[in-house]
Structures are given as C-alpha cells and as structure tokens.
C-alpha cells in the first residue's frame, strides 16, 4: 500500500511538472557609457574556410527557406533552424552550446553577454553592416557593451496601443484608458503577460508621476518598482485578460472580449479587420529590438559570420522584416521598391522621432542604467518575483 502511494505521488509530481511550460519575452535599450564586467572572450580576427553547417536559434519568421536556401547555395553552409518562443528559452538554448547564432532581443542580450555565452563581433567582417543601418539601432546598450559590439541589428518595433474602433470611437491619445480605474473600457483591457511589462507601467508613471523620478523604465529602484507594481495591481482589476501567446491576443480582440490594449503592429495586421486601429500614445511606449549574436564557442564561426553578413544586406534584412512585420535595421531596403518603401513607412523604419519615444526592452540589472550611483536598481529576478504578485 505504501509503495502504491509513493508511486502515485511520484506520478502526480511528474504530471504536475510535465504540464508546466514556458512563456515571456522581453528586450531593452538605454543610455550609453555604461561599463559592465563581462568575461574576456576573444574576437574573431579574420575569416577562414566555411564549415558545413550553422545552427541558429531564432524567432519564428526570421529564418525561412525563401532566403536561407540561397545562403546555402552561396556558402555551402547548411542552415539548421530552431524556433524559440521566448527570450528566456533562447538564453537557455544558447547555454547548451549546440547553437552558433541567436536572434536575441534586448532582454536576453545583456544576460548572454554577461554570462559569457556570446562573443564580441568584429564588424569589419560584416561588410553589409554599413552606413545604411538605421541611426537608432547603432551602438545600443543591448548589443554594445564597453564600446564593444556583440550584436548585429535585425529590426525593431514598438508595443503599441491597439483598439477596436467600433467600441473606442475616439482615438486615444494617452495610455490612461488602459491604466486608470475610471477608464470607460474597464473590463475590456488586455495586458502583456511578462515581467518586462512592468516597464510599461514605469513609462506611464514617468509621464504621470514625475515625483517618483523615473528617467528610464528599466532602471527602477525598489520604491519605483513598488509604485509600478501598485499601478499594475490597479490595472489588474480592470483587465479582461493577459496575453503572451499572439494567437490568444488576436482571438481576444476578434472575439470581443477585449476592446483595447497592448499589441504589436503585426498582430493588428493579422486580425485582418480595419476596425482594429493602433496608436503610439503621447507617453511613449516600450518596444523591442533584435540583433544576431554569435555563440562564444561557436563550432562554425565562419558560417556564422557569413550568415550575419548575408542577412544584413538590404534585400535579406528587408525580407525578414517584411515576413515578421517590423522595421528593418537596414534602411537601404526602403529604397529597393515601392512596396519596400510602403513597408518602411508603415513601420516608421527611419523615423527616429517616432522611435525616440520608444523604450526598447533591456534586462534590468542592479547597476542603474540611467546613471544613478547612489541607489541599487532592481534586477530581472526581482521583477519576475514582483510580477507574480500582480496577478495573485
């Protein structure tokens, strides 16, 4: 009997553990001039013979046969793709040592760099990374540390406010409709389901509660984090649901459960209905910016460099951006055709003023990236823990 119970308990435990999955993603940006201790990893000085294959961890839509087949033809490197759903998953996969390249978002990149998982990039070996890379994606904190580049930009996008114009008849100018208790849309608001969403609350507080002294939503001391969590708890009472899964977000809008909330341009387009509109409110917003990074102990560094260079060309970078639905990093793409120009226009590709209002996902770390030295900032683990209390 006893052993039966033990087996039962073991079975249940395994079932409970097996049923847990994953989700969340994030990224970041901030001011330069920050110095962080990073492991000393040598940079590749010159290219050699191509290896036979290259293993890539990427977001869905970043590596497709439409352009990877041509790469294989040109270089002889077979491309093996692994799609990851979240930044956390990407970090874990890169640590297995089985992959050469990752399409890291800003919340993953600092962790990868500090963890010694990726190597510095010799931009001389990436000729396609030229003057055409848009201004706002050069030398950002999430891929350039201590003056050394660790990533080659792929594209960027903002977390916009999407709304159903049948219900929300007047275009919102502020995020207040998503945060304040007296919102006319209380109970029909969708929020992003990840610790990095705390930064969205911080962006709102920057504009509405200047006394808190937040100057960068990814550099929050304990008091500022508490204020953001309070705001999130307030929002929790008027939220219809949280989304991490894009398909769930789309059905929530399309099914009428949600009238307004956080979204990406690509998701709004996928609803395939003109009544869904989007706006970047006056407070600004958070956003994400992705970059290719090469594993510190890559077994195919030459193929890896070749891939990073190949995908930085105007055509291929544009193809990825079009496929995924984001602003491309290589501005030269915008001049390649009318269609490309329209894409760049729609995603504000070269509109630095638009993106100046966007705070790209950045891993929160103890060192305050807004330059404060008199306080300790909260790190991502504290954010993760604090996030749990929002929904409890």
């Amino acid at each position: 009997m006893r052993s039966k119970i033990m087996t039962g308990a073991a079975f249940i435990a395994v079932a409970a553990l097996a049923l847990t999955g994953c989700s969340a993603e994030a990224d970041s940006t901030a001011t330069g001039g920050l110095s962080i201790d990073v492991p000393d990893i040598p940079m590749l000085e010159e290219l050699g013979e191509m290896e036979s294959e290259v293993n890539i961890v990427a977001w869905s839509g970043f590596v497709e046969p439409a352009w990877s087949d041509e790469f294989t033809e040109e270089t002889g490197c077979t491309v093996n793709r692994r799609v990851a759903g979240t930044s956390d998953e990407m970090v874990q996969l890169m640590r297995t040592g089985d992959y050469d390249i990752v399409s890291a978002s800003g919340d993953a990149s600092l962790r990868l760099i500090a963890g010694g998982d990726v190597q510095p990039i010799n931009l001389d070996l990436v000729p396609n990374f030229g003057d055409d890379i848009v201004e706002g994606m050069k030398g950002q904190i999430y891929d350039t540390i201590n003056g050394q580049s660790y990533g080659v930009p792929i594209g960027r996008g903002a977390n916009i406010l999407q709304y159903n114009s049948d219900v929300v008849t007047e275009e919102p100018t502020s995020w207040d409709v998503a945060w304040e208790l007296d919102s006319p849309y209380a109970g029909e608001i969708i929020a992003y389901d990840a610790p990095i969403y705390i930064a969205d609350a911080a962006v709102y507080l920057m504009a509405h509660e200047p006394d808190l002294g937040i100057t960068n939503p990814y550099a929050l001391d304990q008091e500022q984090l508490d204020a953001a969590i309070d705001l999130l708890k307030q929002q929790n009472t008027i939220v219809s649901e949280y989304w991490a899964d894009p398909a769930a977000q789309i059905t929530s809008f399309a099914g009428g459960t949600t009238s307004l909330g956080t979204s990406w341009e690509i998701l709004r387009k996928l609803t395939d209905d003109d009544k869904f509109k989007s706006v970047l409110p006056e407070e600004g917003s958070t956003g994400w910016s992705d970059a290719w990074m090469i594993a510190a102990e890559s077994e195919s560094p030459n193929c890896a460099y070749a891939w990073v260079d190949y995908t930085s060309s105007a055509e291929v970078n544009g193809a990825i951006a079009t496929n995924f639905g984001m602003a491309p990093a290589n501005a030269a793409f915008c001049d390649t055709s009318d269609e490309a120009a329209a894409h760049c226009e729609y995603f504000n590709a070269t509109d630095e003023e638009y993106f100046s209002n966007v705070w790209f996902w950045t891993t929160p770390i103890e060192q305050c990236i807004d330059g404060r030295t008199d306080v300790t900032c909260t790190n991502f683990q504290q954010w993760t823990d604090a996030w749990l209390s929002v929904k409890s």
Partner: protein
Amino acid sequence: MNRRAQLSALLALPMLWLIGIYIFSLVMLLVTAFWVTDPFTSKVKPGFTLRNFEQIIANPAYATTSLRTLGIALAVTVLSILISVPLGIFMAKVASPKLRAILAVAITLPLWAGYLVKILAMRITFTEEGFFNSMLGPLGISGPGFSIVTVVLTLTYLWLPYMAVPVYTAIRQLPPNLFDASSDLGAGAGFTIRTVVLPLIKPAIIAGSIFTFSLSLGDYIAAKFVGGSTQMIGSIIASNINLNPPIAAAFSLVPIAFVVIYLVSVQRTGALERM
C-alpha cells in the same frame, strides 16, 4: 533458472524504468530546489540554500496562488462527481443498451481530441461574442467570460472522463438484487443511492478524484487561455522555469504536498485498499 532469477528477469525492465528514469529524474529536479541562480546571468549553480523556500513563504503571491489552485482542483473534483454519479446510474441501470453505448462514446469522445484543441475550443466558446453568449444571450444570461469559473468549467470538461468511466464501471458491477432488496424494504430512489450505491462506489469516486484533483493542480494552460487574469501554481512554475529553475522546483513541491496529504487522508478511509 531458479525462481528467483526468473522473477528478477521479469522485474528488471519495469524497475529500471521506475527507478532509473521515473524516480531518478524527479529526484534530480527536486534537488535543484536547493540550488541558486545568479540574479544577473540567470545561470543555475549547484549549492545548498533554503532561500528558495524562504522566498516562497515570504512572497504572499505564492500562498494565495496555492490556495486558489487548491480551490480550483477541489471544485473541479466536486463538479465531476456531481455529474458522474447520476450519469453513471442512468447509464448502468436505466438506459437502453443502445443509448448506453451512445452515452459511453459521448463521454469518452473528448479523449480523442488533443489537449490544446480542447482548450482553444473552450476559449472560443466563452469569448464575448462566442457560442455561450450567442446561445444564452436571448434569455438574458451572459457567460462568465474568461475567469476562474471558466477555468473550473474547462478543467471539468477536460478531466470528466477520468471520473465518469470508473464511476460508471463501478455502478454497472453492482448486483441488481441490491436495488431490489432496498426497494422491497421500502427505500425510495434517493435513499437507495445514498445508503447503497454511494458507499459501494466510493473507491471508484476516490480513484477518479485522484485524477481530477491532481491533473487540475498541475494545469496552467487552461488558466492561460480561458482564465483571464487567473493565476495558478503551474503559471508561476512556468514563468520561472527558464529564468529561475530552482524556485520553480521548490514551488513544484507544493502540489506534491497537496496530493500526498490528499492520498494519506483518503487512505485513512480504507478506500485505496479496494482500488
């Protein structure tokens, strides 16, 4: 070959499976509950600390979520029993053989579909403009939307076969003369069910409840897709599993503890002996 060697040979494969893969991997996972995670690089380092457990106790989010999950699992179990017992009695004792076969297929039908398909079907059913509201809207009834109620309904839908099948089988095995005797002695239907049927099918109900209860405790996808802002134990484990595996492992001990307490308490009733 002597008997002993024969027995060993027979048990070698199952024991290898049970100890080598089943138990060992579980123990390894639980050991990480005592390890530490570097807060910056989120790399896991072996060591020994009770900090993860302290954190689970100190952060009230863990306690409220645990209690909420426990409540959901109990509600799913009770609801499953309330549906399964009358259904089982009807199928076994009242329905014609043909209707019985149709009902048996209907109950097990959900098992044929994939888990995610079922969750998404429930999601579509309960959206604001979904099936539920459009059917009952004219009667002035509006659905629960995405909420804790919908989570309970969804989980009941998912796990009902695990309760209904053993209960039905147990009722079928009850000899008809027990019902006759009860009726001869003047008992009504309700009295017969309460004093004759329920005590006899208790082991089946408990067997079913172990499934509905423990599967509900471990689930998090239902909360994610139909729960609105509902958070369950699984949701917290899922959000920590990549970033901070030690705390996820520590927290996974909570549902294990719930299930062990449950098993020990039902064992006291002697029901497990007859399973």
